[in-house]
């Protein structure tokens, strides 16, 4: 069952990546390099050495040369595993995470970048050392899909600590998770950071009424709550506020945060996220 699904995901991702549809887009990460990409407006914090004086003189405002990322990038995919990932109405968030990991992984490998994968819950579940071969992608997808995530909590702090000192400055770090926990990714700011929030519409916007037992997938502890409109409204507000805080935090680090929902086409969403 799991093997089947792993194969499907791998094939789909490979197809998208190797037919060239998205392969280049996904790793069109911008950064230091010699591969000139474009001229753009200077914004504070940019390296002054990259200012394009000719363009600046012509336009009257500061312009900057932008280069595509140096080849042979170091791409680190961190997949935060928690019980919440088992949730999903159309399909599980677990499945989306696996697909996303496959896409990023294969596109990195196809570009000849070094790929590192870490599966982390409250401890490091699995760590694949940097490599250029695609074997670890399959292995990690299998790991994600086959492991029982219930009773697991995503501890972003331990993830940050794990990457700290292990990954050199300037790597591309993609954190995939559902971001329900409070987190502080400040230490990852030296990398090019992408935070991808995988969610299901129903969990953000549950429209159920009545007496219901709710169980926390992260701890397996439950309680009975009679749900109704006003309570759910408050819940939505609370969750929105939580998400907004995390968005703000990640923006402040100069990183990018994006949502992928279970009912969306993962490939398309991935292109949108990494291309823009």
């Amino acid at each position, binding site marked *: 069952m799991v093997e089947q699904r792993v194969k499907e995901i791998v094939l789909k991702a490979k197809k998208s990546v190797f037919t060239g549809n998205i392969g280049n887009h996904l790793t069109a990460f911008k950064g230091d390099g010699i591969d000139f990409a474009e001229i753009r407006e200077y914004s504070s914090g940019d390296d002054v050495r990259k200012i394009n004086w000719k363009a600046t003189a012509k336009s009257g405002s500061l312009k900057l040369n932008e280069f595509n990322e140096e080849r042979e990038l170091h791409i680190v995919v961190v997949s935060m595993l*928690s*019980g*919440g990932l*088992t*949730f999903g109405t159309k399909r599980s968030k677990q499945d989306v995470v696996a697909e996303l990991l496959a896409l990023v992984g294969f596109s990195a490998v196809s570009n000849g970048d070094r790929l590192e994968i870490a599966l982390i819950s409250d401890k490091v579940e699995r760590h694949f050392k940097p490599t250029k071969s695609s074997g670890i992608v399959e292995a990690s997808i299998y790991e994600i899909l086959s492991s029982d995530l*219930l009773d697991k909590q995503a501890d972003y702090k331990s993830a940050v600590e794990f990457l700290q000192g292990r990954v050199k400055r300037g790597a591309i770090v993609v954190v995939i998770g*559902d971001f*329900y926990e409070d987190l502080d990714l400040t230490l990852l700011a030296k990398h090019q950071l992408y935070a991808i929030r995988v969610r299901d519409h129903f*969990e*953000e916007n*549950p429209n159920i*009424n009545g*007496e*219901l*037992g*709710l*169980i*926390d*997938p*992260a701890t397996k502890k*439950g*309680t*009975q*709550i*009679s749900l*109704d*409109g*006003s*309570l759910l*409204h*408050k*819940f939505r507000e*609370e*969750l929105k506020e*939580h998400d907004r805080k995390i968005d703000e935090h990640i923006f402040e680090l100069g990183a990018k945060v994006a949502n992928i929902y279970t009912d969306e086409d993962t490939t398309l969403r991935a292109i949108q996220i990494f291309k823009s």
Partner: protein
Amino acid sequence: MANIEFEYPLFFIIPIIYLVCIKFCPKRVESIYFPGFRFIKKVAKRRVFIENSIWFLLSILIAAALATPISKSDVVLDEDRGYEIAMLIDASGSMRQYNKFNIAKDIVIDFLNKRKHDKLGLTIFADFAYIAVPLTYDKKSMVRLLKRVDVGVAGRQKTSLYEALFLSANLFKESKAKERVAILLTDGIDNTNTVPLKVALNTLKKYKIKVYTIGIGRRGDYDQKVLEKIAKETNGEFFGADSVAKLKAIYNEIDNLEKSDFKAKKFVKRHYFVEYPLLLAVVLLILLFINSYIRGRR
């Protein structure tokens, strides 16, 4: 307000069972894994607490209603048929001799407790007379009061015997009882002259009060003739007591002479308060329903 007690306090086990049940046999409802658990719990915390408290309160109220709160008033008899007895006790200085007063008090209390179904009054006299307790069924407070009375509460020099008789007779002004009795306990002679004997006697006769007179101490301490006269004119009886045993015997005799023969006519005034906790419970239930209805619509 009389003391409220519960007829079936065992019902108060209900809230305890309720608590135990909540802990150990929770409702079976469908459960789902919900990733946003932390947030929904935080949001619902206060409300869940309030709702649980209300349910618990409801169980208490229902238990309280089932336990039947009740206030029992004293035994009330058919007043037309019961006895009404006024006790007159000499508290003059001489009663202190040989501990007479305390012995008399104990015997009177004993007597009081025997007359379960009668209305009793208490008059104390010495320099002056006063009504310590008007006619009442409330024996408890009467005993309590009697225990506190001591020689000297009404002065200790003189003995206003007739005044006491007169005052006690007036106790029966409103009386409807058929049998009216006064028991006079003294060890002296009236020497205040505040009320003439004749007036006192007339009042006693007017209200048809039978007076038992008891003289205690040696003959000569008290005026036997006067006491006999009072007893005779009111169809009562005179007793002389020169020992504790005798005094006891006298009171027993009076008790036997004036035996009330009806015990069936006994009422306990009960007032039930069942409706209050029930009403409160119903109001709370309605509020809960309205609350869930409104919230459900939003």
